[in-house]
């Protein structure tokens, strides 16, 4: 262990963890400690994907992550998506395709898709990307517009 005080990066900004209790979830740290309310609380048990954020570039369910365990990691929330080339493209694609109705699941979808399309993810077949979204629920859209947004984002990133 280094002598550095425990910290986490959230959307590029260092966040000190000294006062964070051992059982606090990343979801609560983001929403209530940092005021980043874009990340949504859905089922709070890992079943709906509304709270998905990126941790070190991969989609993670923030309701099932303990903040203190992520010391040294980099977190990206939907508030940081516009500053990321892939995240921005995914957001744009969701807008263009009208891939939201009530919008509650949208931040989770945007982050999950961003995680799946990062790296060389845009080379994956769309079916594989959609399978990766198996844990993200939308109760309004029937997923058709979301699938179109995924395809649009994938094409634009190629």
């Amino acid at each position, binding site marked *: 262990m280094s002598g550095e005080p425990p910290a986490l990066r959230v959307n590029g900004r260092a966040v000190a963890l000294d006062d964070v209790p051992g059982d606090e979830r990343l979801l609560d740290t983001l929403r209530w400690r940092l005021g980043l309310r874009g990340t949504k609380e859905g089922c709070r048990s890992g079943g709906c994907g509304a709270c998905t954020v990126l941790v070190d570039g991969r989609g*993670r369910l923030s309701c*099932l992550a303990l903040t203190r365990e992520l010391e040294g990691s980099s977190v990206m929330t939907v508030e940081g998506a516009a500053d990321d080339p892939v995240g921005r493209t995914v957001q744009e694609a969701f807008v263009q395709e009208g891939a939201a109705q009530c919008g509650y699941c949208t931040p989770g979808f945007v982050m999950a898709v961003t995680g799946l399309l990062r790296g060389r993810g845009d080379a994956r077949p769309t079916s594989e990307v959609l*399978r990766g979204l198996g*844990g993200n629920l939308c109760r309004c859209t029937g997923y058709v517009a979301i699938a179109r947004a995924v395809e649009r984002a994938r094409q634009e990133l190629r």
Partner: protein
Amino acid sequence: MAPPELLTPTTEEGAVAELVATAPGTVAVLAGGTDLLLDLEERRLEPRRLLSLRRLPWNRHAWEGGGLTLGSTEPLSALEEDPQLPVRLPALAQGIAAVGSPALRLQATVGGNLGRSAPASDLTPVLLALDAEVELLGTAGARRMPVDRFLRASRETALGPGELIRSVRIPEDRPSSAYRWQRVRPAHDISQIGVAVAYAPRERRWGVSLGGAPPRPRLVPEAAAELHGPRPPEAEVAAASERLARDPALVSDRRASDEHRRRLAAVLCTRAVRAALSPPVAEPT
């Protein structure tokens, strides 16, 4: 009640020492957290300390000695990415793909799945059919035991108070193996029934196990005894499936009726053996 203190030891000796230094019942061991965190949330557990295994070097797997050693804290997603898995141990690849959603599998671990002894686990029937052994580490050193002996009941294992699951060992490749399951909504529900089958080439016998039925996943040797040799004929597959469907564990609960479970057990057993006999291909399950 004060929030629990999070401990993140970086060595296995340190982890065991922390565990032993804490009164039994006041510490919860944390691997991926996909199951434990739900108990903390609902206050079914109120530990004083959380012992995280995340920084231990137990998060990788190795193909060795003709089989596979799984580190207890490796996320299932990392195993999924190994192209050898569907060829050498197809049942395990299919069992892993059956666990939750892709996002959940980035966190969920083999050790956590075993240690929590969930009654409807999709991994434990597979580990049983593959004759897996669990390696436990305590102050007196390591000991091994078959998964079948390790799992006692729902939420109950043979893990001692000062012990941790270090690894899981699958003794040999079982290319003729498969796992089939049924649930209402694939990514979100718990399996109503899971059936794992595997042919052990050295011992020239089959293993058949049943999951999703109480009290815990277990081997059904009576069904396996109907199957003979590496390529059992259809009549033997039918006999094994019928035998499995008569298993007394197939009872009614809130997930399925006994009648539904019996039919599923027979159908899934037949499909699993047929899949095990087909050449390995990358297939979505």
